[in-house]
């Protein structure tokens, strides 16, 4: 049994250069990139708090998408795949850098928000000080308006764990703002 036959037999979709999208033409990959890239960068930015890093991670996610293109292009929502990869890369990157001091971490937020109110800056700083997982849940819940089951799927945790992260994050944010952490609305 040769390799190709083994792949056919197992149902594996074998990738080859011909199955990768033609990057020089207006194909579906370019369309996907154009429609999704900026929004994914924004979401990733809210998690990693660094614009260049957000772009790097999002670009890495799209490069990985190209590597899996033959398979992912058959999905109903290929954009969801690349978004999930980017978010997971962001959370992983935050975990790696979590030991940095809070001041170092918050510097990019300060620089980018000269026009927002002191209260917003306080709030963004507080979000920035959350654990990577809590921050990702907050961003996906409040910025992307995703239901918790989707958030859990993206982050690879259970739904109940996702709610725990959200409630702990809200409690912390409420204390920073001097407010009561009432029910999620």
């Amino acid at each position, binding site marked *: 049994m040769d390799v190709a036959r083994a792949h056919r037999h197992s149902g594996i979709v074998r990738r080859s250069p011909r199955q990768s999208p033609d990057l020089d033409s207006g194909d579906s990959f370019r369309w996907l990139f154009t429609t999704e890239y900026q929004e994914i960068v924004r979401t990733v930015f809210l998690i990693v708090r660094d614009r260049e890093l957000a772009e790097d991670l999002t670009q890495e996610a799209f490069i990985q998408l190209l590597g899996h293109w033959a398979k992912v292009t058959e999905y109903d929502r290929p954009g969801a795949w690349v978004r999930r990869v980017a978010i997971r890369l962001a959370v992983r990157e935050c975990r790696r850098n979590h030991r940095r001091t809070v001041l170092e971490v918050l510097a990019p937020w300060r620089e980018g*928000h000269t026009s*927002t109110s002191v209260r917003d800056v306080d709030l963004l700083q507080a979000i920035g000080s959350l654990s990577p997982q809590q921050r990702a849940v*907050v961003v996906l819940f409040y910025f992307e308006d995703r239901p918790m089951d989707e958030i859990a799927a993206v982050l690879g945790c259970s739904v109940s764990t996702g709610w725990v992260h959200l409630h702990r994050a*809200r409690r912390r944010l409420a204390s920073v703002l001097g407010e009561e952490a009432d029910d999620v*609305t």
Partner: protein
Amino acid sequence: MSLDGQIRQALRESADTVHVDVEESFDVVATASRRRRTRSRTLAVGVAAALLVGASVVGQHFGGASTQVASSAPSSSATDTDPVAGTFIIDVPPSAAATRDALAGRWTISLTPEGMVAVSAPDAFTGQTDGGTFSVSGGRLRTNVFVNGLCVATQAANPVATYTWSAAPDGTLRFSKVADECTGRELLFTSTPWIRIG
């Protein structure tokens, strides 16, 4: 404004400050992807060449003795791969280690009689699913699969793993580690039996 409203507003305003050049970024991705593919092909050719040279040198050194033992990657030419050849599914359970590297889920791995390994990963896995080669000798299987993907971070001194294997009457394979410096690969080989589907 409620706490939730304030959070939403602050995040939206923060996100709106981010503007990107989509066309320029597309070019960056396209170029990096081409480079990565070229590097991957070059690496494969380089490894193959190194194997040939290594096998030649070792063969000369030992006066024509088997080159399999001393080569830096498994060679299928001198081994009988038929006992393990086939296509298998591996359902990696969601342990802490598996979840950390997004390895949990169903993998499909083909071991061909020619000594090639082809891999199909679960959707959650985002790393490279490069294949590799394997050889079988004396109840042991040696392979370099995942050396450019899952095992890159390990930076193992020896990229080749060695496992003993046993086959059930229905063809299911069970592996036990002899030597493997890559923990992710070890998880795939030993966390659960490989169920033969072809």
